[in-house]
């Protein structure tokens, strides 16, 4: 088997998003949101929804492939796939799985999507209402370690301690996201600016490093991208974004119970990132656009370090707002506002923003737009990341 790679075999040809809402404010049901995002992505690609032949999702999405296929009148469903794990760890993995199906001939036109109406179902930021907890939870929840923030905060505490990184580095990440959201009409936090004083004065969610503005929103919405073979990619309405690499999985035993993973202060990408760059035939220095999933800013920090985009020992100097802002920063970050300030669409909004940047149609367009890295769901297991590129990057 000569060339086992996904590099350049597929492309994202269409993108679609619903209006994004604060949790509980969507007038439409979660499944209807999924349909809206998929139909919009088809319009963007210039195809009929009848031409879709596969679905890939993650985070235990409730909009099942079979119901979608029936509702949309899919002629022949050839691929249906769910990436294991909670949260947005699977966002890039879902795109990669769609690409793998297309690259291997299992399917020709696969939608990777996420639909999430937290207002209609459970909110992620609330603890369980169950009277009994078993398994790993039994060793954690009775001590008040319940929500995602609480489950991850001790990783961040230790990482900051080990490397002497200050709160200001996390503040810069949040400020960049909020800044980029201000130009974005679909950003839930548009009109709500953030500066250093407001960040510093915001309440603690968890000491010592999780202010309110270090934590993602909870939202309602849906988003979808359409993955097609590379040799058909130019048949569509927009400039293709080619998948150059996908890495997914986790570090050695990163899901070890009761926080016993060998590499504890980690976003779980240390073994994935080198594979990702190898497949892409790129290095971190080649990456122009960075879209990094913010469940919490500490996860962004560790993801950037583990993907070689920032050195831990330089984080205090590099992670300052001017370096992270489009268009002129050295590493524009989350240029549509991301999970913090655009919408917590479990990271699929980050994939879509990367496609807009590569097309050259982003609201906060950056000039160096031939390659983009998207990093999904740090600190959960499994996680995933992808690199996209324009034709020039092939």
């Amino acid at each position: 088997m000569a060339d086992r790679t996904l590099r350049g075999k597929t492309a994202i040809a269409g993108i679609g998003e619903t209006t994004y809402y604060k949790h509980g404010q969507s007038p439409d049901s979660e499944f209807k949101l999924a349909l809206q995002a998929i139909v919009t992505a088809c319009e963007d690609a210039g195809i009929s929804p009848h031409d879709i032949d596969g679905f890939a999702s993650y985070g235990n999405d409730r909009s099942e492939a079979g119901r979608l296929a029936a509702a949309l009148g899919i002629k022949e469903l050839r691929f249906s796939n769910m990436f294991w794990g909670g949260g947005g760890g699977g966002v890039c993995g879902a795109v990669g799985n769609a690409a793998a199906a297309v690259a291997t001939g299992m399917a020709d036109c696969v939608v990777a999507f996420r639909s999430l109406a937290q207002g209609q179902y459970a909110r992620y930021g609330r603890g369980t209402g169950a009277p009994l907890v078993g398994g790993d939870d039994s060793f954690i929840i009775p001590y008040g370690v319940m929500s995602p923030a609480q489950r991850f905060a001790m990783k961040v505490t230790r990482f900051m301690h080990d490397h002497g990184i200050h709160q200001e580095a996390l503040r810069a990440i949040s400020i960049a996201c909020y800044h980029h959201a201000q130009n974005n009409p679909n950003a839930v936090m548009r009109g709500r600016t953030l500066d250093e004083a407001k960040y510093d004065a915001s309440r603690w969610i968890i000491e010592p490093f999780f202010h309110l503005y270090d934590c993602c929103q909870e939202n309602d919405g849906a988003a979808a991208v359409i993955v097609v073979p590379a040799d058909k990619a130019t048949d569509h309405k927009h400039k293709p974004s080619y998948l150059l690499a996908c890495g997914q999985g986790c570090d050695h035993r990163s899901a070890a119970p009761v926080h016993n993973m060998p590499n504890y202060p980690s976003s779980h990408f240390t073994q994935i990132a080198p594979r990702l760059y190898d497949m892409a035939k790129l290095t971190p220095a080649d990456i122009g656009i960075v879209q990094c999933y913010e469940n919490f800013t500490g996860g962004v920090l560790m993801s950037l370090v583990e993907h070689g985009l920032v050195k831990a020992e330089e984080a205090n100097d590099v992670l300052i707002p001017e370096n992270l802002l489009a268009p002129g920063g050295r590493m524009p970050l989350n240029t549509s506002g991301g999970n913090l300030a655009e919408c917590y669409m479990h990271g699929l909004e980050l994939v879509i923003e990367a496609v807009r940047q590569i097309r050259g149609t982003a609201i906060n367009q950056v000039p160096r737009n031939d390659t983009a890295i998207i990093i999904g769901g740090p600190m959960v297991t499994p996680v995933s990341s992808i690199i996209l590129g324009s034709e020039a990057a092939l």
Partner: protein
Amino acid sequence: MTEFYLPEGLPTPSSAPDGLAEPYWEGTRAGQLRVQKCGGCGSWQWGPEWICHRCHSFDLAWEEVQGIGRIYSYEKPHHPVHAALAKRGPYIAVLVELPDYGNIRMIGNLLGDAAQTVTIGAPVEAVFEPHDQASPPFTLVHWRVVGG
């Protein structure tokens, strides 16, 4: 009930549905801290699993360990995410590693004032917190700074 570090009403730990952790919870009721030790390679293993991740033996014994460790990491949650915590105010959760037992780690609360400075590396000792009136009864394991 002021004798508990966190208010009553949080979920009760259970070894359901598969019984894997039953020896641990039985041990805490007896004031003992028990973890897994592999009968195949002698490694300590925590949290509980059916197999040793090193040698793949299914012969995992439960052995009592001394509740002596050091703080590996910590957090002070302020924002309550459960109704039982609504009026509690900040509290401290610690991740404690046990150097005498292969650096396995455990999570508990750090007793004392939530405003205290928490030092990574500080020595701590286990403190059992029985909930005898709960149904079913259970015992949590907290930590206290040695000499603190």
